[in-house]
């Protein structure tokens, strides 16, 4: 009984203390769904957020920093390396990344290096290189694994599927911020998570998570699901269409 009382007292103190200190982070997406239609060429969403403080919130010596991390659906990715074999170059070694987001974009209001130390960024998994860092530290990984992961990030960046905007978050006032998220047309369909973290002086103060999804709609959706659900009919329809167009051309262009 006494133990419980102490526990309750401790909890009460803890709650009031945290109540007096912490900021609250409120976040909203401009849209929770991107629909792929036949004229789809990519899309843009905006993350809006508010750092809420009240009279009891302590004053901060350091400015607020916001880091937004957008992760797409997770899939198995394969990274291959070409090596020399005699006179020719062929894929020899490969490494699997079994549960890796196909889309990963990080945005911050100023360069992450100015916000926190490299070690903190690694520990907190902040930034493009750290966001999907496997458990443990880099030291634990063999240099090969690191080389492959670096290459993965580099190649995905070239495809616009990964990216880092060091000034992608804009503070509209001292507490209100926004961050545009560009979704290229090649970004996969599925659900995306958006993690927003509030930092001050390299210390995380509040977190918030929201999400959105990319789906095919209309004719795109019907064709794609038709190809899977009625594969035989879909194949027959394609072949008949192809033969019909071929026949049509020979009728239209017939001269003799």
């Amino acid at each position, binding site marked *: 009984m006494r133990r419980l009382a102490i526990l309750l007292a401790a909890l009460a103190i803890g709650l009031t203390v945290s109540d007096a200190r912490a900021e609250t982070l409120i976040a909203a997406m401009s849209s929770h769904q991107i629909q792929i239609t036949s004229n789809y060429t990519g899309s843009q969403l905006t993350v809006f957020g508010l750092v809420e403080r009240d009279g009891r919130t302590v004053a901060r010596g350091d400015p607020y920093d916001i880091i937004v991390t957008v992760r797409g659906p997770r899939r198995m990715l394969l990274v291959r390396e070409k090596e020399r074999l005699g006179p020719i170059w062929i*894929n020899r070694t490969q490494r699997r990344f079994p549960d890796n987001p196909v889309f990963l974009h990080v945005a911050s209001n100023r360069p992450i290096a100015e916000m926190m130390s490299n070690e903190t960024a690694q520990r907190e998994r902040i930034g493009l290189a750290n966001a999907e860092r496997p458990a443990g530290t880099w030291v634990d990984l063999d240099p090969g694994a690191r080389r492959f992961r670096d290459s993965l990030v*580099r190649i995905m960046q070239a495809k616009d599927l990964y990216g880092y905007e060091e000034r992608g978050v804009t503070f509209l006032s001292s507490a209100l911020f926004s961050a545009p998220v560009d979704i290229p047309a*090649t970004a996969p369909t599925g659900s995306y998570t958006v993690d927003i973290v509030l930092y001050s002086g390299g210390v995380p103060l509040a977190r918030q998570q929201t999400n959105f999804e990319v789906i095919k709609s209309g004719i795109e959706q019907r064709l794609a699901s038709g190809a899977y659900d009625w594969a035989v009919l879909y*194949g027959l329809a394609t*072949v008949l*269409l192809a*033969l019909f167009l*071929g026949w049509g051309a020979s009728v239209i262009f017939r001269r003799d």
Partner: protein
Amino acid sequence: MQIYLPIAELPISVLMVLGLSGAVGFISGLFGVGGGFLLTPLLIFLDIPPAVAVATVAAQVAGSSMTGVLTYLRRRALDLKLGSVLVSGGILGTVLGVLFFNTMKRLGQLELVITLSYVTLFSIIGGLMLYDALRAMLRVRAGKPARLKRRGGMHPWWMGLPFRVRFYRSGLYCSVIPIALLAVIIGFIGAVLGVGGGFILVPGLIYFFRIPPAVVVGTSLFQILVTMTGATLLHAVTNQSVDIVLAVLLLVGGVIGAQFGGRAARNLNVESFRLLLALLILSVGLRFAIELFIPPSEPFSVVLPESSR
């Protein structure tokens, strides 16, 4: 104007696809080849996933060869009997090719096999065709007929093997064994490389069996029509990688291009176009050779997962 492809899962410029397929269709109509050997690498180069490119090109080739088959049928330049022998051999070859394809895929060396095959096959065939075209041009320049006349009584030994059959329309009396063997090899190569194989079949029939070129083109197109129709269905049912929107775009460009190609074949100097086709095939081979021999600027590559809707 961009249109989003539902299976390939990316937007593509309509005009670019129409222009590309039109140009390939022109070549296809001109030489009686399917054009898949050009279209498939071009689509892969445009970031279309390789599986989608191979499967969709099969549909396109089926459609455009349909036009050609109807045209040659009307002109009575199609040997259905010879075509049937080629189709049956081709089916056997396709089955063997698919088995080989899956084995290499399991061993992780499919890409190497495809690249090496493109390099050797295209260099040999392109080289042979270039030699032949240049020789023909030189003969024309010297005032002699472009082609050597067929000499009666001089038959290669393989035509005299057992099971001789008379193919009236081709003016051929020959054993079915070497013809079926050629069809098996072409079906095999076609399945492994994702091409129709017309660019091997046409010179094969002309050089090994001395069938008149006019009949060869129609008959080759017939064989391509049947195998590519089957391939499209197989791809659609087994791996759902046929993109119907891309197929229609490729077809519209392809059939129109093929019409102009077909007319050009009748009106223009075919000898110089043979030279061009030889150079074209050689350059495709060279492009793959560069990939193989030049140190890559980016040795790493990322294989994105196949679409899972």
